Every structure is written in C-alpha cells, then in structure tokens.
C-alpha cells in the first residue's frame, strides 16, 4: 500500500474515533467523499478498535508466559472432558471465568444437562474458606428464583471441587451489549429481571459481590439468569475483625497481595476501599451494569486497574443521556442514584429500583405502542356459555364438516390421558400437536402442569412445586405456557414456563389471586402478540374499601397490570377470552357467590365437574358433544368488549 493511502486511513480512523458514537458513521461517510473502499477499510478497522488497542499491550514476555499457562491448562481441560465426576459426565468446556472453568456435563442419574463449574484448587484449599464457601453455596442453592441460576449440587471428587448447576443456553450480557448500547425497552426488560433476582437474594441475606455483565446470562427467550452468587467470596480475604461467615466480609485492597476481589469496573467504592459491604454494594454494581447496557460504555473505566479503581472512588460518570439519545430523565436519575458513592444516599433496596424501572418500562411501552391503552367499549351482547369437553376428537375435520353441512360420522373419542386422579383444563398448542393440562399426579397430592404430545404416551411434567398449578394457557407462538399457581400466599401468582420445561418465571404476584374465587374465575388468555395475558381478578372476601375485581391485562414481560373492567358488587367479571385478532375480549359476568363457598351450582362448577367426569378416560367410544349450551339454569351471561 502506498504511504499516502495509509496515512489517509490512519488519520480517518483516529478522527472518527474522536466523534461521539452516533455521529461516526455520518462523519466517515462524508470524509470519504464517495471513496467506498476507503470507507470500508476504515470501518473494518474501527470495528476492531478494542482489539487494535489491546494489541501489544502486554509485553512479549507476558504473552509467551501466558501461552505456557494456556498450554498447561488446556492439557488439564482435555483431561477432564469425557471423564465422569461423581455422576456427572463432562461433555465439553463452555467457558472460563475468574471463578473457574465451566463445562457442560450430563447428570447421568437424572439424565439432564447441567453446567459444572470446576473450582480452581488453590481457591478452595483453605478449609475455613471452603467451609464458608460451601455454606454460602448452600444458601444460594435455596434461593429458587427464575432469574437466579439454580444450584443443584456442590461436591468434591478426585480432589476436584465443583458446583453443578442449571444448564442455560444463552449468551452473557457482555456479549449482548452493542457498542452503542441496547435498545431502551430491551435494556429495561433485562434490568428488571436482574433486579428481581437480586431482590430475592437480598431478601435471603445473600449479596452477590461481583455483579457484572459477564455474570448475567440471557437466554434466547430473553430470560435473565444471574450466575455466581457469592462466589466472589472465594477471592476475598477475611477481615481481621469479622471471621463469621454471615458478617459482611471486607476485602483487602493491598496491592502486594493482589487480592482485590470483584471486577474493578463494577465494584462499589466501599468494596474498592476494603470497607464492609452490604446489599447496597450490589445496587452500585447494578447501576454500573445498567449504565453500560443503555450507553454501551462502562460507567467507570481507566487505562489500568488502578485508574479504574480511582474512577470508582472519585469520578462521576458522564450522564447517560449525553451518550445515548433516548434515555428518559427518570432512568438517568435511577442510574445515578444507584451510583452514588455515599451508601446512605444510594437506593437502599433493589426492590425500589425494580419498581422504578417497571414504571419506566410501562411508560416506554405505552409510548412506543401507538395503540395505547385498550379502549373499553362494552357491547351488551349475550353469548351462551360453552363448555368444552376435554377428549380428543378428530375435531378439525369434524368442525369443518359441521360448518359445511356435510353429514357427520359419529365422532370417535380417543383417550388422551388415562391417569389416576383428575386432569383439568387442557389447552392445545398453537400447532395442535401437543396438549397442556393440569393433573394432581400419581399420588393425587400435587397438582402440576403437564404437556403431552398427541398420539404419544410420553408426558412431560413442567412444574414440580408443591403448590397447586392450574389453568395452563399456551402462548400464541407455542413457546410458553402461562399458568396460575395457587396455595401459599407467597407462592401465588401467574407464572410462565417454557413449553419444553425449565425454569418458571413469575409474571405477576398474588394480587390477582387473593380471595376465594380464584379457582372459579377462569383461566388465562393470551393476546395474539404474546405480550399480555387476560385474567380475572376476584373480589377478596370482606373487602369494602377498594374493590380490585375485574378483568385485567397482565404484561408478560413485567410492568403494570391494567384493570380493564370494574364490575359493581355483587357482579363479577370472569372467564376472559381474547379474540384471535386481539381486538376484543369476551368474558362472563355473574353474581358473586357467598363468601367461602365454592359449591353452589353454577356454570363454573359445572365446568369443573364436566372436566372431572370426562377426564379423558378410555371408557367408551361414546359420542361426545364438542360444545353445548350450559346445562345450568343460572347461566353466566358472557359479554365482550373492544380492546382497540
């Protein structure tokens, strides 16, 4: 290449970098003045900016020494792959982090994939440290939250310490943040889930200590999983005064020992200074992560470890709105409040941050969604209640023939299930190849959600929680099943689970389920865009002050529940069903039952009885009506309303 050409490339490279990110493209285009090959060349170099900068930054001696280390550890890794640790067969290496090497492995007992984190031996060699670590890992394993990676097991075998945990296919957040920052809605969606996970842990008294984008996984479905809770403890030195594991552990910042735990760029000032830390330290780290998500840049970043620490301690990051255009002032304030150096002036509880972010998300959604708030228009058109028999009929053909007036052969009833106990509320997958239902199990003691493929004997159990799970509802894209969890107050809520199984996620808390009518208020119905669930909120017993009852739309990805009908007592609105075009909701309206009873004959009870009676037993090739008018004299009049 001729030197002039190179000079031009170089000059453009550096002057483009001096521009703010969103002006770079236009600047470069203009500067190249139609010289397309020049523009492409400079652009391709800009795309590797961080790698260019990293080039030759470590001296050659260090590079060569690292190659030796890599050689050594690769030999070690090759040795582990294919081996069996306890009852885990190591399949492949997934990655490597500050806390150990992670492998994909197969749990040969339960025949499920797991992620094995193999801990570096020198890290767990000190028995006291190990004891504290195991204690912490046990505490974390009890957390059980969809946004926290589930720990299955912690074990040692052949002098290898490892943690077996839930295997999640996804990417870590640091791979997902583009250089210009994430889209606002997406960033909030992820951030709210991180906050939910942290909130759960903080409630249990567990601090993460090393929250950073590489410790946050996002699955293909957008579900967030926080990894490595409390693992940073392994690299911490104990404070001289606080040997007890439950106490906040201070971290020595003595450089000669090289013992700073956590990652400098996301570390709170108190952590960097080695002062005792608490949950507010995680809030600071959360702020740093959120900052990076929306701006694409780290809140604190120096050229070296020391200067990064100095920035954490002394500098205020540039306001996010100066780096990205679409940041609402409320979000900027929320981030800045996470990042206050003084813990007393910071957010005190992650739950508060979460609520704030949820509101911001609801605002942002309603702005981006031009359809806006569903408009309620009631049409007093009476429809007849229909009960759907739950046996599998050759329904498609049958219906078609019914409509076209062709004479029908008697429908053949094919048993779908033949289990002991009761199977309830079946729902077809959109493709029609699978049916989800709730069943109280072999021992009739735990109602859970199951999925069964049509024509196959194998059934997949989706939920295992001791609380009863009812009313599965298949999402329009066929990927999720929403359901109600009843039972103990702290568990109650609407949950979402992948139709293939995995971790469930709470969509809405128990407010929708308070009161005695839950089991009679009907199931959930998805809007066709998969963003909302329609459900009926009952009227809690004895409430006089505020009546929350009515049909509600629950945002699937978190946010504010929208109540769209407000029936006047003693009327209740029940059984919401969203029309296939998403424009209307049909629902039932009826007089409420006396408090505490669920036995008065009514259509809903009939429905349940019908479900129980026809519970898919292979008892006969009898004719089964696909639909029929309600047999009850006190039928529920259905209404429908326009949504948009």
């Amino acid at each position: 290449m001729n030197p002039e050409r190179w000079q031009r490339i170089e000059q453009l490279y550096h002057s483009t970098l001096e521009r703010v990110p969103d002006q770079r493209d236009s600047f470069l285009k203009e500067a190249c003045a139609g010289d397309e090959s020049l523009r492409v060349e400079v652009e391709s170099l800009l795309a590797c900016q961080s790698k260019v900068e990293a080039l030759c930054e470590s001296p050659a001696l260090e590079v060569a020494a690292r190659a030796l280390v890599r050689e050594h550890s690769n030999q070690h890794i090759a040795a582990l792959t294919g081996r069996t640790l306890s009852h885990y067969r190591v399949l492949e290496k997934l990655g490597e982090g500050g806390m150990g090497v992670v492998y994909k492995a197969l749990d040969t007992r339960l025949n499920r994939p797991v992620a094995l984190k193999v801990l570096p031996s020198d890290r767990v060699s000190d028995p006291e440290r190990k004891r504290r670590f195991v204690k912490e890992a046990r505490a974390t394993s009890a957390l059980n939250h969809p946004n926290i990676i589930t720990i299955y097991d912690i074990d040692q075998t052949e002098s290898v310490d490892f943690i077996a945990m839930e295997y999640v296919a996804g990417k870590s957040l640091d791979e997902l943040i583009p250089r210009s920052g994430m889209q606002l809605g997406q960033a909030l969606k992820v951030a709210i889930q991180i906050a939910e996970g942290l909130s759960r842990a903080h409630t249990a008294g567990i601090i993460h200590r090393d929250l950073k984008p590489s410790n946050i996984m996002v699955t293909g479905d957008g579900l967030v999983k926080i990894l490595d809770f409390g693992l940073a403890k392994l690299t911490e030195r104990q404070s001289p005064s606080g040997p007890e594991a439950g106490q906040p552990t201070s971290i020595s910042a003595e450089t000669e020992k090289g013992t700073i735990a956590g990652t400098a760029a996301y570390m709170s000032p108190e952590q960097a200074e080695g002062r005792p830390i608490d949950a507010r330290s995680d809030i600071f780290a959360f702020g740093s992560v959120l900052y990076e998500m929306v701006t694409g840049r780290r809140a604190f970043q120096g050229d070296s470890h020391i200067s990064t620490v100095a920035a954490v301690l002394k500098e205020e990051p540039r306001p996010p709105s100066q780096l990205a255009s679409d940041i609402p002032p409320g979000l900027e304030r929320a981030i800045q409040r996470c990042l206050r150096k003084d813990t007393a002036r910071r957010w005190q509880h992650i739950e508060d941050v979460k609520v704030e972010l949820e509101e911001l998300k609801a605002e942002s959604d309603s702005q981006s969604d031009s359809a806006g708030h569903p408009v309620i228009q009631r049409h007093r058109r009476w429809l007849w209640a229909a009960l759907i028999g739950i046996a599998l009929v050759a329904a498609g053909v049958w219906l078609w023939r019914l409509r076209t007036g062709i004479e029908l052969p008697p429908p053949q009833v094919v048993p779908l299930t033949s289990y002991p106990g009761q199977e309830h509320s079946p729902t077809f997958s959109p493709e029609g190849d699978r049916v989800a239902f709730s069943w109280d199990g072999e021992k009739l003691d735990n109602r859970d959600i199951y999925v069964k493929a049509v024509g196959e004997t194998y059934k997949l159990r989706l939920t295992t929680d001791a609380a009863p799970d009812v009313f599965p509802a298949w999402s329009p894209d066929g990927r999720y099943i929403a359901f109600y969890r009843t039972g103990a107050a702290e568990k109650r809520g609407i949950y979402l689970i992948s139709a293939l199984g995995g971790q469930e996620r709470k969509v809405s808390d128990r407010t929708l389920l308070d009161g005695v009518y839950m089991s009679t208020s009907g199931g959930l119905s998805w809007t066709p865009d998969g963003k909302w669930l329609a459900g009926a909120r009952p009227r809690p017993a004895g409430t006089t002050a505020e009546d929350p009852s009515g049909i509600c739309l629950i945002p699937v990805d978190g946010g504010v529940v929208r109540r769209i009908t407000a029936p006047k007592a003693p009327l209740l609105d029940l059984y919401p069903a969203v029309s296939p075009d998403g424009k209307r909701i049909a629902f039932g309206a009826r007089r409420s039952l006396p408090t505490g009873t669920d036995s008065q004959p009514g259509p809903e009870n009939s429905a349940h009885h019908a479900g129980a009676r026809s519970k898919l037993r292979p008892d006969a090739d009898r004719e089964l009506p696909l639909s029929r008018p309600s047999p009850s004299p006190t039928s529920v009049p259905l209404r429908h309303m326009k949504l948009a």
Partner: protein
Amino acid sequence: MAIQSPQEVTQLLQAWRHGDNAALEKLVPLVYDELHRLAHCYMNREWENKSLQTTVLVHEAYLRLIDASQVDWKNRAHFFSISASLMRRILVEFARSRRSQKRGGDVRKVSLDEAALFSPEPSEDLIALDAALNALAAFDQRKARVVELRFFGGMTEEETAEALGISSDTVLRDWKSAKLWLWREMRQETAK
C-alpha cells in the same frame, strides 16, 4: 538453573553485543527460566485479579533480564536496543519451538482445545507479530523499532524515547499508529 544476578545478565548481554555467541547460549535459558517462573506465578494466581499483579511480575522479570542501571549512560540507548532485539529473537524462537513441538508430537492426542492453542488471538501470536513487524520495518523503520523496544523489550515510553533519540510524544504517536498498521497487516495475513 539458579537465577542469575542482574549484573551477570547484563554482562552476558554486553558480551553478546560484542560478538560473543557463547553469551547468547547462556542467555536463552535465562529468558526461558523467567518465562516459566512467570507462567508458574500466573497459574497460581490465575483466578485472582490479573491486571495489577501481573504487571508487577512482568516488570520484575524484565528488570532481572535487562537492567539498564548496570550500564553507563553513554551506552544506555544502545543497550536498550540490543536487549530488545535479543528478547524478540529469543521469544519468537520460543514460540516457534512450542509450535513445532506440538505439531511434531503425538498426532492422535491433538484435541480441539489443543488445536485452538495454535490459533490464538492475534495479540497472542508472537510469530505472526514478528512477521508483521518485519513488514512494518520495510515501510516505516522507526515505528517498527518503537514496537520492538516496547513490546519485546518491555521498555517504558521514556526508555524507548531515549533509545531512539526521539520525544515521548513521538513514541506514543508511533506506537498507536504502528499498532493499527500491524493489526491490519496481521488480519490480511490471516485472511490469506
């Protein structure tokens, strides 16, 4: 081999500079010793915070190998230069020997992980860097020298400036420019 005192290393370097090839043979194992020492430290500290600690370690290793305080000021610039090119020679040779050792070894044992060892990030590929640096020297001799002194010789901006008789600002500019050039060159080479 026992760690040599800096004086001994410096004397060997100077002897080599004056044409004593036996001195080189004694120097190579010294550099290898430092390499293994460093690697050992990294392995023991691999899981702790890297950046701070290892900078100190590498700096100390370089100091043991190239200690300018033992050289009188008139010869310093030349000493820096000669040490850096010697380090380059030894380290690139080291990388080549590892590579050929791996390739010549038991073929059946080469797993995917090991294969990955042969195609590290460009920033970790000393052999590719060496070749790109030769190309840069033909294009801009001074920039190539800046990289040799800083990257292979482990020298500071000031020492580099001193060795080349230019200002620190120029060193910094050359450094930035050379890195961009090298990156582009190495990428083209990989693409071939």
